[in-house]
């Protein structure tokens, strides 16, 4: 066989098309939705009930909104209310529809050098971390989780410029990579509960503080506005939304558990979306 023959064979072998016949739409979601394993449960059901193949782009909230603005996805499912409202106000999304919420937890070394375990609220816990100058790893990637964390520091009376110290480390990475970093450094961090429970490399880290209502984290679904991008599949996006707020989906979300712990609380309001 000559090289030319081989190359021709190679070309024929590799230029094959993958048939994706079902209706597909793209949705940008945050890492926690996927890392929790919830998407693995929901996607097959969505496919079964609606015939839609939902292609997930797993990114941070910042990037998800960017993809929506550019019209590269048909819908987004994120958790950062202010940014979402801005997205809708600017006309990139048609509206936001609340689907469910989960919560954030403070994770740190099991021996808890900063002593945050018995704090009354999240503000006190963060204050203790900053007072003891214990290492804290931040996402630092402009994601919904990162924005939430910054607002919590603010709430604890610690300004952003006070975080410019050597105990506060911005990883500039997704939840998983940040958990890996914190695990390696034995540092404190804030994680969504789902990612933490699913995380397989916990090392000496343990869950130290949770339960303050300020740590609740609302997820909303935003279809991309077809007025801005006429190619978006608004019909499919609407169909998916109807499925997500349906009794069946809400029940599936509420009963999803890891190690016996409930992760998401469904709170979609049936009927027409409010905002």
């Amino acid at each position: 066989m000559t090289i030319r023959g081989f190359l021709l064979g190679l070309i024929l072998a590799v230029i094959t098309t993958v048939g994706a016949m079902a209706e597909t739409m793209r949705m940008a979601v945050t890492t926690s939705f996927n890392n929790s394993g919830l998407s693995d449960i929901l996607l097959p059901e969505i496919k079964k009930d609606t015939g839609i193949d939902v292609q997930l782009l797993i990114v941070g909230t910042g990037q998800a909104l960017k993809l929506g603005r550019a019209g590269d996805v048909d819908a987004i499912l994120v958790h950062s209310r202010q940014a979402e409202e801005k997205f809708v106000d600017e006309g990139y999304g048609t509206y936001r529809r609340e689907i469910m919420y989960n919560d954030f937890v403070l994770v740190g070394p099991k021996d808890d050098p900063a002593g945050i375990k018995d704090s009354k609220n999240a503000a006190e816990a963060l204050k203790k971390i900053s007072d003891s100058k214990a290492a804290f790893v931040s996402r630092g990637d402009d994601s919904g989780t990162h924005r939430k964390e910054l607002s919590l520091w603010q709430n604890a009376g610690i300004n952003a410029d006070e975080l410019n110290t050597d105990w506060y480390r911005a990883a500039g990475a997704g939840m998983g990579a940040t958990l890996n970093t914190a695990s390696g450094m034995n540092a404190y961090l804030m994680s969504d509960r789902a990612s933490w429970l699913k995380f397989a490399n916990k090392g000496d880290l343990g869950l130290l503080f949770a339960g303050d209502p300020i740590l609740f984290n609302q997820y909303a679904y935003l279809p991309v506005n077809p007025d801005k991008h006429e190619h978006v599949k608004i019909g499919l996006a609407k169909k998916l939304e109807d499925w997500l707020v349906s009794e069946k989906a809400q029940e599936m979300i509420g009963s999803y558990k890891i190690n016996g712990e409930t992760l998401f609380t469904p709170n979609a309001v049936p009927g027409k979306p409010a905002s």
Partner: protein
Amino acid sequence: MNEILDGLWRAFLLLVSLDAELYEIVFLSLRVTLTAVVIASLLGMPLGAWLAINRFRYRRATIAFLNALMGLPPVVVGLIVYLFLSRSGPFGVLGLLFTPTAMIIAQVIIITPLIASISHQAIRDLWAEYHDLLISLNTSKWQRIRTLIFDARRSLLTAALAGFGRAIGEVGAIMIVGGNIDHATRVLTTAIALETGKGNFAFALALGFVLIGLAIAVNFVTHLLSKTERTSRW
């Protein structure tokens, strides 16, 4: 250490269990990278040959520039391709973003300079040898390029394999333009990045070993088919 052994063991289990998802990912990795190597070779090899036999004003600068492009940061290539293919970009209407085609485009851009540079080097050496002969036979430029490419085929194979090596292990660019979508654009490298993010180091390593095995297999088959490096021949 245990994680490495565990990873090896899981890689073995994955392969023998004929895990459908694994084979889908492996097949897509191969399809994207081999297509990119074929296209990049068709572009890079004639370019390398052309640069070797032509003398023009900015030849040195062109070659230096080409060599520098070998070090193109994949993330930057990915970002630029992304901006071009995005719905808001100049080629947005094609709807290519987050498809295997977009990944192939990014990989072609990354490996074409590499293949062209290595080809240029190989053909330059050969041209020094063939120069007088080909000139005296009054060959056309195109005939010279063809002769040189054919006679330098062993070195050009190395160039293609170097391109394959860079492309198959690449993650930065294809993560951005492919999006790592399950069942659509997930390949071995992006799956490894995803599993590492979940802290599943053993599974990530298992995929890594599959990737290394795949690279070895492709190189081996290429040598087998082109009948190079046999024990009985020099």
